[in-house]
């Protein structure tokens, strides 16, 4: 393995967060191209099945991760699962933050129609969202964290699909709109003399 590939392996070992090509070239003094070539060399060395670690590209950088083969033993050793279960409320809140960030708690509450205090607090505790300044009205704004990207195996938020795909078709939409008025009108008509 080239000296640079070994250096990068060491840097990835030392860092607890994914490192971008820019960070790696700044630290090693090599150009981006050379760093990328060295990363390819490393990827080869860490190809699945070769080592207990994998080279993964996640959250906008490169990082070493444990091989899934070690998962049972790792859980035994560390005494906890990779991640706790997320409640539907937490997932919904997370989805809203991921798509609309930076977003305030009142905004989340408005969309969900219920108070968002508890899910936001637990997402903060778990490091999946973090505070990110304040809105012009002084409400704390929230963003997703690198941990969120790592946990959901995303390169960046742009990997998330367009949420419009879950919207009803225009036909369904107008059906829904009519439902409130039309159904009620029919009943109102039937009950009036």
């Amino acid at each position, binding site marked *: 393995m080239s000296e640079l590939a070994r250096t990068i392996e060491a840097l990835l070992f*030392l*860092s*607890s967060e994914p490192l971008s090509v820019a960070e790696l070239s700044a630290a090693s003094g090599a150009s981006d191209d050379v760093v990328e070539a060295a990363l390819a060399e490393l990827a080869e060395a860490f190809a699945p099945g070769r080592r207990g670690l*994998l080279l*993964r590209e996640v959250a906008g950088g490169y*990082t*070493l*991760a*444990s*091989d*899934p083969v*070690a*998962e049972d033993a*790792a859980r035994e050793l560390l005494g906890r699962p*990779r*991640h706790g279960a*997320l409640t*539907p409320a937490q*997932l*919904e809140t*997370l*989805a*809203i933050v*991921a*798509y609309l960030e930076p977003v305030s708690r009142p905004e989340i509450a408005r*969309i*969900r*129609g*219920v108070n968002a205090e508890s899910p936001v607090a637990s997402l903060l505790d778990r490091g999946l969202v973090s505070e990110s300044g304040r809105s012009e009205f002084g409400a704390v704004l929230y963003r997703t964290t690198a941990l969120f990207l*790592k*946990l*959901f*195996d*995303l390169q960046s938020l742009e990997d*998330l*699909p367009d*949420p*419009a795909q*879950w*919207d*009803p078709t225009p036909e369904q*939409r107008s059906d*829904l*709109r009519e*439902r*409130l*008025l039309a*159904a*009620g*009108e029919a*009943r*109102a008509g039937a*009950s009036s003399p």
Partner: protein
Amino acid sequence: MRIAELELDLDVFSGPFDLLLTLVLREEVDLRELSLAEVVISYIDHLEARGELELEATTEFIVLVAALLELKSRLLLPDGDAEELLELEPAEAAEELLARMLDARRYRSAAAHLAELLALAPEVRYREAPLPPELRRIDLEQAPAGLWDPAILGRALGDLLTLPARLDLSHVLVARVSVAERIALLRRLLRKGGELSFDEVVEGDDRMTVAITLFALLELYKRGEVSWEQPKSFGEITVRAAGRAAVGGRR
């Protein structure tokens, strides 16, 4: 069961929920008269009777009731927005409710997608531990020479412990108006005419003085020395002495 079919028996309305919604939107049922708490209780009763929680339906219900609550609170608060809402066409109102429901639905679907992503993500773990302390801290030997010198540290700490000089506030004018002064003024004016206009008393005064004068007036009212009336909101306040005997008796 669809939420629309929930049967309600309320003070102002009896029938299915979607009819109630329609009537509210068409302003045939006055939202201000409608107890939304009753609607919620009916739904809870219904849930208890069924013995199971239908998440989909419950979410829809909550979103609708929340929208109704917002409409109602806007109706109850007399501001510019309320008038705007009153003018809202039923179709527009339905559109607004619908937009809410669709928004909520979109992010519910996004949440389901996230749950899938989480389930599909490979079972790998990443380093979570911060760097060990020996890698994070600078060694004493490596730190710039003299930085840890006790004398320097002592001076730095000493600076922090020294109280800064008091700020000179003498150029700031503090308006000093006391309730007692304003009471005296009001009594003096009332002795002259027996009746006065509040606006005239505080004419040209700053807000603080106006507020203190109002306190003084309240105090006099409490003591039974004056009566006052204001025919309409923000209108003229006329103050009358309750009787010379009462005023004189207390002086």
